[in-house]
């Protein structure tokens, strides 16, 4: 029996920045290997879990993606005194970095804290401003010589954060973006074992999404599916953010409508959720979704693409907060949708708007 919450905790507490996803892929593999027929790794860092459908005739090919990378920092320079200057790999909200505990992944993993000039010694003007990334530094509490023995330029820095349970199904931690979706994808694979499905499913943990959706593009080229489903996070309802930009936590996964999304896929998923009584929210996008959906839609001759998101508060901080029920429902909805896919449906997708 798959314990989704435990898996989410393991995934979020595993360090895996863009281009360095192998540990996260390893956790995913361990959790999902027994649920699928085959696991493959490609030459650039994607992991694919393959589960084959049943029935005669050619099987529709459905690809799911959930990116495995998280935003991290990287050692850009070791300064006099052993302080580390950092570069972004993905976009941390640098306003939230000051005072954080971090883990620096050198020849061994060591703790550090992010510091800057104290307020007492800052001018009034300086205190009004956010401290820019280039003025922050990491203090490892060691001599420069000791630092240089363990740490090198190019080493990764991740947040030191244990994932916690809040009330109900709410959970908070780092890297919920996008281990929430990796968890939803795994739940989907687990659900599929209980269902008859004709489609072959390629569930891909994609690499380097946070620096521009790289893995989804190459994986989509490789698998060239009939349907691509991106799973990612979207903004959760937050004071000061209007309701069209943020969706409610605990009221179901979010389905996106917009130019990157195939309209018939949108309608099919929405109608199925209605019929099955699965809570679902809708988000409207006017262009880029900034997810794996964007590049996948235009791979080779084009792929019908749809996007399911988990609402998440405080994106790109170390306290990303969500409701686990949204993850669970996303997994269930995806599995039930996949079970409905047959060749006739796939063929219908080539007629973009006609019914």
């Amino acid at each position, binding site marked *: 029996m798959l314990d989704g919450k435990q898996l989410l905790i393991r995934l979020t507490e595993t360090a895996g920045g863009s*281009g360095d996803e192998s540990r996260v892929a390893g956790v995913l593999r361990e959790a999902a290997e027994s649920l699928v027929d085959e696991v493959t790794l490609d030459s650039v860092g994607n992991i694919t879990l393959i589960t084959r459908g049943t029935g005669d005739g050619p099987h529709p090919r459905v690809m799911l993606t959930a990116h495995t990378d998280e935003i991290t920092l990287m050692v850009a320079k070791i300064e006099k005194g052993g302080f580390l200057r950092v*570069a972004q790999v993905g976009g941390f909200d640098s306003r939230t970095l000051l005072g954080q505990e971090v883990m620096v992944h050198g020849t061994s993993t060591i703790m550090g804290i992010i510091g800057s000039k104290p307020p007492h010694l800052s001018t009034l003007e300086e205190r009004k401003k956010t401290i820019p990334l280039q003025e922050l530094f990491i203090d490892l509490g060691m001599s420069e010589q000791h630092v240089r023995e363990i740490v090198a330029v*190019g080493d990764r820095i991740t947040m030191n954060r244990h994932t916690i349970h809040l009330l109900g199904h709410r959970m908070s931690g780092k890297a919920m973006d996008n281990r929430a979706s990796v968890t939803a994808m795994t739940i989907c694979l687990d659900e599929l074992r209980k269902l008859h499905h004709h489609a072959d499913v390629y569930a891909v943990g994609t690499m380097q999404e946070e*620096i521009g959706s790289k893995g989804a593009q*190459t*994986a989509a080229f490789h698998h060239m599916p009939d349907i691509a489903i991106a799973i990612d996070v979207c903004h959760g309802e937050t004071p000061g953010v209007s309701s069209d930009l943020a969706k409610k936590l605990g009221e179901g996964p979010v389905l996106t409508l917009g130019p990157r999304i195939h309209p018939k896929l949108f309608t099919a998923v929405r109608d199925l959720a209605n019929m099955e009584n699965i809570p679902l929210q809708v988000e409207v996008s006017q262009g880029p979704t900034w997810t794996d959906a964007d590049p996948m839609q235009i791979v080779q001759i084009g792929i019908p693409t749809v996007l399911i998101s988990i609402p998440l508060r405080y994106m790109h901080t170390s306290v990303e907060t969500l409701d686990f029920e949204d993850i669970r429902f996303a997994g269930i909805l995806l599995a039930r949708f996949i079970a409905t896919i047959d060749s006739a449906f796939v063929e219908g997708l080539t007629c973009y708007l006609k019914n």
Partner: protein
Amino acid sequence: MKDLIRSLTIPSGPSGYELPIKNDIRQIVTPFIDECYEDILGNLYAVKNAKSSSSDKTVMLVAHMDEPALSVIDMDDHGFLRIAPLGPLRPSALVGARVVFARTGRRGIVGADHGIALKDLEFAHLFIDIGVSNPTDANNYAQIGDAATFAYGFDEIGDHMIVGHALDNRVGCALLIDALQHAQSEYTIVGVFSAQQAVGSRGAKVAAHRIHPNVSLVLDVSPTGDTPKSENSALELGQGAGIKVLDASMVVAPKWRDSLIEAAKTAHARYQMDVSPHTTSDAGAIFLTQDGIPTCGLSIPARYLFTPSQMVHLDDVTSAQQILSSWLSRLG
């Protein structure tokens, strides 16, 4: 090596019209390679077969040969040429610059409208003076659409530093030529002198599609952080070749990054880790091709990029040469 770099910095190669530099490179590499061809984007391919004919693996080495340029967009009644940038040039670095037109070889000077403060300078304020007084004469030497590049050539400062307007990336081209001439590998080496890097790595993209190698390595320059008030970068001139960790276009997989570190250690060559989050290279375009191509990079630390006086340390070039040779011989 210094002489090769010197000779490569002279020919012009604006993005989209790389003909002069390409012809020179083709002439240099032809004697020691097995095959040479071009494609419709203007990339030059130089193939050196694997040591044993049984090997079917390919490594693609890429060095862009183009350089940022100024494109003529208009001409006034007195024969002054108005310009727009082809690639990432800054107006402030151009005032008074000497330039040369790639097609005709005509030289010119960049001038600026009078009374504009340096900080307010935009391309609309700049023009090229080619020493004529009317459009009819001007047309003999430069027409709308022609591109001009810097015309400074090559200098040495002290015993170790070289300076040139096109060290980005003729240093990379020189390293690639050297590898094609001397390297021994179990892989077939396809050297690509790529076109149009400065306008979005367009050449590298189609080259990667055509070759679809098992692995690719990009040779390019990276900016140092060792000048007054420069960015937080650990790269220093003279401390060894840079092994690419990431740039603005991709992150190198640990496996391939470490293969370069091992190659450097084997060759006893100095190296530094290159973290350049704001620098673009051909690596990202190659990496994303088709189902993905493992891609890594060797960087030559350089000061004053996108100015007429780019500076490189010769020891870093030597380190890069040693690391590349060692890496190629260890593939297999």
